[in-house]
């Protein structure tokens, strides 16, 4: 008998008019000690399924029918009081955002001890002891001293450890982890996933891992359940679902993820958006967006069937093995071409030993200088006309500050930025405005970066108005043509941002950035707020626009696969320093800097074979403070290869290839003589 058996579960959410059928007949089982991955895009019902198990639905939500059996006991039928004894005791739960999931007014110790005291019926002192014990278990350094800390005193990674400690304090049989690492940096994500895996072994519990990230699933789950629009569309053991995908949605989902090996030049994107679940379509819910859909799919609903015992799917026209995984190896070749072409390109922007420091002041009346936060230190980089530069690094590495300086929003405190050969900050304020029109920014959050009270037409027209370009009629025309370029209809002009989906809004943002015909667009996390299928649409669009407009991109992202897909050259930053730069091939296949290699190994890839055999070099510890960065090489505190030399002397940038440079005393590959005749930075 499985530990958890969800049997034909229906969960609805009441609206003012009608109901959203969030979960529509889901059956999932989880065996003891097993990890089941539940994947799907936002709104597919995966979180609602998890919440239904715990019976923690929002006030308007309710379980309409179905059973949730835990050890044979139906949780749906339990009274609220009986259910409370299950929560936190038999089932533990971890949530996505560790920054907001802990009570800011209570110490972490009391928050962990609270559930121990409740379920294990022990006194406060005993519960506190147990809290220290579990904090030790989840790898919290010095748990005895940390127990009286408040959540805000801990970093994101440590807070997530506290969340895990809290969920595991009563040794539950089942752990539901809802996007446990989505809000964390890749190196911290790797630490947390590793921890969850080892704890699962140690405590012999089962885990339901809810995530949108196919990479996380590939390496950690025994079995995968794919959900779409409130229904399970496919489920199988992890290897099978990746190797012999049967449902077109699963196939499309996998095809729309950029690959780390750069093997895809153009991403598959699923047309359209998921259906409205307050009025779900009859027949297959994916039919509208499916490339194989027939009339049968639109009229009758496919049931979950299995072709072998442990692989089932709900589709009339399953995709075959041969149709799947058509990899195009153009990208690698293209990089070779870029390498050759590079010599002919002329520099568009030169960052010459650029630094940015923020002063931190202290004291009540006299604002004494308490220190400087070194956001970016001595960064040199040449951006060539028409290329795409990717900048990757963890949060706090200075990549966004670098982007702000490139578009003249932040003034460097040291060094110079040359744009078209002229000093960007040497201009008079009036001249700077005209220079600025060549430098545009594409924002991360499509919800916050558009004024909700302005019509889309005015939003896109505003840059033209400010710079007094053309007559009003010409401006109107320009707006319409920009909209059609980003794939939106002219009707959008009259509408407001809230009427559009996230992907559409990001297109509006892109249209606004293009309005002034800029030379350079800095895209700061352009797709990280979007779902996988929407993400690929925007990424493809960015590539197309680059070709038609001759744009130069600087793509800033924590997502290494996105950068790999878009960029010709990639720079890796760590704690304000550029540690390595090179082509996608150089960085991903042949990294020289130990940090680059560690960062890459931390990224979970949607390839189970590779994930399971991967020798993980999880970087230990957290990012040091940028106020007092380590002497010498800044990465040395977390580096395996570090010696005394690294502490004493800062490693200079050395060449490893035509476009490949890294700053390390003990690089992973040997540096080569620069071939004569080839251009360098």
């Amino acid at each position, binding site marked *: 008998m499985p530990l958890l058996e969800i049997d034909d579960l229906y969960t609805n959410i009441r609206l003012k008019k009608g109901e959203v059928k969030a979960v529509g007949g889901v059956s999932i089982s989880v065996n003891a000690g097993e990890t089941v991955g539940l994947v799907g895009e936002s709104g597919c019902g995966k979180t609602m399924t998890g919440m239904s198990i*715990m019976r*923690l639905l929002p006030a308007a939500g309710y379980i309409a029918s179905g059973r949730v059996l835990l050890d044979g006991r139906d949780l749906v039928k339990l009274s609220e009081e009986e259910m*409370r*004894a*299950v*929560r*936190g*005791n038999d089932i*533990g*739960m971890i*949530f996505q*955002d560790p920054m*907001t*999931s*802990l*009570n*800011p*007014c*209570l110490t972490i110790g009391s928050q962990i001890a*609270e*559930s121990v005291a*409740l*379920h294990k019926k022990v006194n406060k002192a005993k519960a506190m002891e147990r809290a220290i014990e579990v904090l030790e278990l989840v790898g919290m350094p010095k748990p005895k001293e940390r127990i009286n800390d*408040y959540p*805000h005193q801990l970093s994101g990674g440590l807070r997530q450890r506290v*969340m895990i400690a*809290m*969920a595991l304090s009563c040794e539950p049989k089942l752990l539901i982890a809802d996007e446990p690492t989505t809000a964390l940096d890749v190196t911290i994500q790797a630490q947390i996933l590793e921890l969850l895996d080892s704890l699962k072994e140690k405590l012999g519990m089962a885990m339901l891992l809810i995530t949108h990230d196919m990479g996380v699933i590939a390496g950690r789950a025994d079995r995968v359940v794919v959900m779409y629009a409130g229904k399970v569309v496919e489920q199988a053991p992890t290897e099978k679902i990746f190797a012999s995908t049967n449902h077109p949605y699963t196939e499309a989902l996998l095809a729309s993820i950029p690959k780390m090996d750069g093997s895809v030049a153009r991403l598959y994107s699923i047309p359209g958006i998921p259906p409205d679940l307050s009025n779900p379509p009859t027949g297959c819910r994916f039919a509208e967006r499916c490339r194989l859909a027939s009339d049968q799919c639109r009229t009758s609903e496919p049931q979950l069937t299995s072709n072998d015992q442990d692989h089932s799917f709900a589709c009339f026209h399953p995709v075959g093995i041969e149709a799947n995984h058509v990899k195009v190896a153009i990208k690698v070749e293209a990089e070779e071409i870029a390498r050759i072409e590079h010599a002919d390109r002329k520099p568009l922007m030169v960052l010459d030993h650029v630094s940015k420091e923020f002063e931190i002041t*202290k*004291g*009540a*009346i006299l604002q004494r200088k308490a220190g400087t936060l070194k956001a970016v230190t001595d960064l040199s980089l040449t951006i060539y006309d028409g290329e795409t530069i990717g900048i990757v690094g963890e949060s706090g590495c200075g990549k966004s500050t670098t982007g702000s300086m490139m578009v003249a929003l932040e003034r460097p405190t040291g060094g110079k930025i040359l744009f078209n050969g002229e000093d960007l900050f040497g201009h008079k304020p009036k001249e700077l405005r005209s220079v600025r029109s060549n430098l545009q920014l594409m924002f991360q959050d499509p919800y916050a970066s558009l004024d909700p009270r302005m019509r889309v037409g005015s939003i896109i027209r505003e840059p033209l108005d400010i710079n007094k370009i053309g007559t009003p009629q010409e401006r109107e025309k320009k707006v319409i043509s920009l909209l059609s370029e980003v794939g939106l209809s002219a009707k959008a002009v009259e509408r407001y941002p809230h009427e559009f989906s996230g992907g559409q809004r990001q297109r509006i943002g892109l249209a606004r950035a293009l309005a002034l015909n800029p030379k350079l667009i800095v895209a700061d996390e352009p797709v990280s707020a979007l779902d996988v299928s929407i993400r690929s649409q925007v990424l493809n669009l960015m590539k197309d626009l680059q070709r038609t407009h001759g744009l130069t991109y600087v793509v800033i992202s924590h997502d290494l696969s996105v950068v790999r897909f878009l960029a010709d050259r990639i720079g890796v930053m760590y704690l304000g320093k550029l540690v390595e730069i090179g082509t996608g091939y150089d960085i991903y296949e042949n990294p020289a800097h130990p940090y680059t290699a560690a960062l890459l190994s931390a990224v979970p890839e949607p390839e189970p074979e590779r994930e399971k055999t991967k020798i993980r070099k999880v970087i230990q510890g957290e990012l040091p403070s940028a106020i007092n960065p380590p002497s010498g090489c800044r990465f040395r505190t977390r580096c395996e290869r570090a010696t005394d030399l690294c502490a004493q002397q800062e490693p200079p940038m050395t060449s490893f290839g035509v476009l490949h440079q890294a700053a390390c005393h003990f690089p992973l590959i040997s540096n080569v003589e620069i071939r004569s005749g080839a251009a360098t930075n």
Partner: protein
Amino acid sequence: MIAFLVKRVGQSVVVLIGVSIIAFILEHLLPGGPAKAILGGRASPFQIAAFNHANGLDKPLWQQYGIYVWHLLHGNLGRSYKLNQTVNSVLANDLPKSILLVGSALVLSLLIAIPIGVFQAVRRNGIFDYAATSVSFLLYSMPSFWLGIILILAFAVNLHLFPAEAPQGQSIGSIISDPRAMFLPVITLTLVSYASFTRYMRSSAIEALAQDWIRTAKAKGLSQRVILFKHMLRNALIPIATLVGLSLPSLITAGIVTESVFNFPGTGFRFINAASTEDYPLLLGIIILIGVLTVVGNLLADITYAVLDPRVRYR
């Protein structure tokens, strides 16, 4: 924290100096002058000149202000023209009565507003929530003198349950000994401040209940009671504590209208009288007291904020 306190106290002194200067100037801009008000309309120019000279009113304004501040630094607020007592002794007599009146209304309104606000938040958009919202908006939109008069009409004139007038005793003891007469003024003030407190409490609780950590607390299996009173309330009370701190000057100002309606012998009532008789020293004394309470209230609000919210640490 200590550096922060020193800085804030320094700022407060500057604010108080500003308040006293403005009040001093405004007061002297009042037409007529105190001599006529005190001596009556038929006073001769000679009498007026003698009064002005005796009270130092014939000196240049800046000198008068200098003398006033000098006395103030010695804790001397001057002497009331009209009452023939020192301002210190007038305030010492009246202030406790006002504190009793407004303070008990404040405590009472919080005791009612917090649970009702929380309950409204938990059962929001239900019948009780709508009813309570209507009541608080009704009270909120009503001027306190109007509410006071209606209560007098209902409970004193028609039902004869409570006296229409507040207790008239001069000492605080005599006022406490007549709780029935205190009822209507206290209730009037309670209802007025309840209306705003309950609105703040409701929205603050709704905000807290929507936080992710409430979901975490539920996932631990905690009961609704523990979630509400241990997890939610502590967070939701932070803005309320600030609000209470800021309402400290209302110990006098809230009474200005209500004390007049009920003829309550408190500081607010005294303030009105002092203004109409141009009793400069008394008027100034009360204004400075209001200023002190405002400054102290702000400071207290900041301190409670830091005590309740561990994320706030003043530098």
